[in-house]
């Protein structure tokens, strides 16, 4: 770094330290973090480094890239320090001053390379977004944008939905759902079976995460939207758009109508990753299991089962926690069910690493409304 950059970094760290003065170093942030077990040092130590004015330590800290911005740390902090914002600012610090050490730049480089050969998801789409938003080294911009164009062409071939009507619920799945026609089909048919018309904003594109860009104008205008991705939720919330999780809408519809559900398997392992409303999401999964008469297996090896690996918007391989979860599901002979689009893809990626397959299903793929005449919601998988 030049002397000027060093000075700038130092004053940025001093400003950070000012905001975490009340910190008691109690460690609740790391304990509450879904990534806490995977982290080398954790948010508490990031704050400690900031308080100590250790610029070099902060620029070299890899843990900030494990943050999925679920805000669990900020919510739990007894001294009301905005820990998640701190982590985000340290990431920015690394982007600005970290040079080659910044893993986001590295990840973008990998993503740009992958884009040339892959057109399926596994988080690569996020890499594409990052590439088009400028988080790539200059020499790779062309390759990255070619990949992005390929995906765009692919999207054009995918059948489109009608525009939302007054009766339908506006459903937005960002970059993920569009790329998987099968997933899209089962999502929509599950909703339709529950008498729920999902309308999709055509051509809405990326939610803006992780590049901190604005979400699509049509969503901002709509004011509220149903989503299935915490990254989308975060971007939309920043723009003042209210979001309702899809799992909640579907579970509400089933409950309101007193409908039984059918499930693909007699038992399943619920997984909610970093979702902000983890407890609520788990409770709704358990409720769905009850409506379908299937068993929800919750004797996890660890409590939160960690983050799926979609860290900071870039998929960089499965976390230790998710690998353990996949092993656990394999031993239990049960598929993993998640209410999050990102988790579903990333858990599938993790599952591909082991020879005997473990399936990961998105909520509407696994559950659907049971036929009205059917008394029992059994397995048809």
């Amino acid at each position, binding site marked *: 770094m030049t002397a000027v950059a060093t000075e700038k970094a130092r004053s940025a760290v001093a400003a950070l330290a000012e905001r975490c003065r009340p910190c*008691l*170093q*109690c*460690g*609740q*942030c*790391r*304990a*509450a*973090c879904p990534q*806490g*077990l995977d*982290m080398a*040092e*954790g948010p*508490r*130590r990031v704050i400690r480094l900031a308080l100590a004015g250790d610029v070099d330590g902060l620029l070299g800290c890899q843990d900030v890239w494990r943050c999925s911005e679920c805000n669990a740390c900020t919510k*739990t902090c*007894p*001294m*009301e320090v905005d820990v998640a914002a701190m982590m985000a600012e340290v990431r920015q610090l690394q982007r600005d001053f970290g040079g080659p050490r910044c893993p986001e730049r590295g990840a973008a480089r990998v993503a740009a390379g992958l884009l040339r050969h892959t057109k399926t998801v596994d988080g690569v789409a996020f890499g594409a977004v990052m590439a088009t938003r400028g988080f790539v080294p200059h020499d790779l911009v062309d390759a990255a944008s070619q990949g992005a164009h390929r995906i765009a062409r692919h999207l054009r071939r995918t059948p489109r939905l009608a525009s939302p009507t007054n009766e339908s619920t506006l459903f937005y799945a960002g970059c993920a759902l569009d790329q998987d026609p099968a997933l899209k089909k089962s999502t929509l048919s599950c909703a339709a079976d529950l008498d729920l018309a999902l309308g999709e904003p055509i051509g809405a594109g990326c939610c803006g995460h992780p590049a901190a860009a604005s979400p699509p104008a049509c969503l901002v205008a709509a004011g509220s939207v149903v989503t299935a991705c915490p990254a989308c939720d975060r971007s939309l919330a920043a723009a003042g758009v209210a979001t309702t999780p899809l799992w909640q809408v579907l579970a509400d519809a089933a409950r309101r109508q007193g409908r039984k559900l059918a499930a693909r398997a007699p038992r399943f392992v619920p997984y909610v990753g970093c979702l902000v409303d983890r407890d609520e999401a788990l409770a709704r999964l358990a409720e769905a299991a009850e409506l379908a008469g299937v068993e929800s297996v*919750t*004797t*996890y090896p*660890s*409590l*939160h089962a960690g983050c799926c690996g979609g860290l900071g918007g870039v998929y960089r391989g499965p976390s230790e926690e998710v690998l353990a979860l996949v092993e656990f599901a394999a031993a239990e002979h049960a598929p993993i069910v998640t209410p999050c689009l990102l988790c579903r893809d990333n858990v599938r990626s993790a599952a591909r690493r082991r020879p005997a397959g473990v399936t990961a299903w998105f909520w509407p793929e696994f559950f659907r409304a049971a036929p009205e005449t059917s008394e029992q919601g059994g397995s048809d998988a």
Partner: protein
Amino acid sequence: MTAASRVLLCECAGTMSANIDFGALEKSLAAEGGAVERRRVWCGAEGQARLAELAEDGSGQRLVFVGCSGDSVAQRFSRLISQGLELAVADVREGCAWVHGDDRVAVTDKALRIARAAVRFPVTSPRAAEVRARVDSVVVVGGGVAGIATATELARMGHHVDLVERQPFLGGYAPRIGTAYPTNDCGACLPTIEEQSGIRKCLYRNAAVDHPNLAIWRRAEVESVSGDPGEFEVSLRQLPNMVTQDCVDCGLCEKACPVTGPDGEHKAIYSEVFDGRVRWAVDLDNCTFCGACAEACPVEAIDFTQSPKLARIRAGAIVAATGCDPAPPEMVAHLGYPAESVLTQIEFALLLDDWEERLWLDKPPVGEVVMIQCAGSRDLRRLPYCSRLCCTIALKHAIRLRELFPQTRVTVCYLELRTLGVEGESWYTAARLAGVEFLRGSPPRVEFDADKRPVVEVEDVGAGRKRTLRPDLVVLSTGFVPAADTGRIAGVLGARLDEAGFVAALDAKNRASETSAEGVFVCGSASGPKSLVECSIQASATAAQVHGYLTSTGRRRAAAPVVDAARCVGCDVCTGACPFGATSLVERAGDGIRPAGLRDDAKLAVIDERVCRSCGICAAHCPELAIAHSLDDETLLGRVRTLVEGADHPVVGFVCAECAGAAFSLAGLRRDRYPESVRLVELPCLGRVSALHLLEAVRLGAAGVFLAGCAEERCHYRSGDQSAAEQIAVARELLGEAGNPVPIEQWHLCAAERHTVGRRLRTLCAHAEKLAEVNEASDELVPVGSGEESS
């Protein structure tokens, strides 16, 4: 007026002659019309003798001493002053000669102004308020260990004491917590009184609370308090016990009772063997009055014909010893409480007793226990404070648990262990040696796995990794909150609460046993969580304070301000402003003097001279200028005018006579130089200053104004600094409207900050002068208030 004064001019052995021309000063003072006596030194034997002569000559002449500061005068002439000498002081030494340069003309002029202000504008001499004997009786509210100890101590001192306890049993929490820090025996010991042998007496034994001067009111609550400090009338409401003294403790009633309370704790007739005197009582909230117990009683000791009793008792003082409660469950809901496997330390104390009984089973009841310190405490969204006791309670339980069941794993998740002192540290060491694991880190929540087993995720800060604990039992070291009824009782007693809802001490450092209400004292955990040791110490302190209060015959010499009935409109501003509740509104006499056009039902403010401490805040706030303080507006403004008028860019300082006054006179002794343009006006309290005085100072030509009072939030009259800040804001607004940028500063000073006085003054003077020069250069400045405000 001046002819009745005699000026005693002191040269201080020539130490002031460098910059004061005493010849000129004497001549000018003589021109004021009174006698002037000049001496090289007044505090020597000769001077003192002359002073004694003057004090006793019966001429009624007012003596004005022109020399050193009030503090120095009080020290030098202490003997004569204690014999009744009254001296008005004009400080030309620490406040003038010793702190200024060699401009002889300017310094002499300033000295003359200081002396002239004291001569021309005398302050009404304060007189002692009327002495009224206080009722020799005390009501102690709350029968926990603090209340019992205070009550027995006061009874021992010979005062009559009424101890009022809401529950049927005395003792509060102390008898319920098993053995206690630091002595490792039960918490309910009391000191013996002279008639008893031994040094301690057990609360469970009858004689512990026996004293002829002590009346105990069980199941009683204070409903209201009327009267004045020193002669309160306290209304009590007492519920009947239903079980009479004939009871032989057989327990047949409890067996016969068909009703169990909602918490499943006890039957509707129950026993707690806590204080030896009353063993059985009827739980009136749950009893269905079926009579089954009365039928079962072999001695007819159950009397359902008893009814609630109202009583009015007189008391000279009241002690609030209402204690504290463990934090409510919602403070620790995030930690899984309440649940079968999540307990508080208080609950765990009872469980430990239970386990001890079953020790013969030879199998530990639990394999792993996790204790969570600061549970719900030191958290801005829950209890922001540290409750002080929880660490030692946890250590005690952890050690006891390890001793009972050495196989049980005990982990204490802590943030900081606050075990102060020799005893505390040795408990901490003992716990580590006993095999308790200490994990630094605070879990954000407690969850449960499918088998309902608690799961605790915590960062092990020392090891720098996150750990998942799966104990059989989680014990929460919850903090403490004020006892449920504290707010109501404080309201009845007129005592203020602190921000956490505990009874606020009158002064945290010096008057920890007194409250904002005169005659109302506080003891024990009512003013914040306290250990048994601290409760015991404070009980003695409070008893001594109460004793001093009841037996005191002298009253402070406070001249209460006088309300002018011809100006007061009954607007209520003064009652809100008075920090001691000395002002109130009363009905006006029909035929009394009243302002023209006043509504018929308008009231009149009165000031209770027994409560008033003479700070002058009411007078500063009165919008009708209807309140005359002993330092009235005429005198105050007259002094300002004498000191300021015609001076070159004067900087006017209003200095309180307490902390800031000390800082200024000590700064004078240090001989910190500052410009002679500084003109000091001494006030009893900064609260005496009103916006009017500030505007007048500016109108008279002040280039800068400062108000120096006590350290932040340490006003000797509670709210004088806030009052001054409000008045400054008003003055600034008015000056701002007039486009007059005279700097007005408020300083918080204590005597320890004397070294900052010179620097502050030099900086302000330089700043004020620069501003004034800029203003003069830029336009022909019209002084503020030269129009309507001067009227």
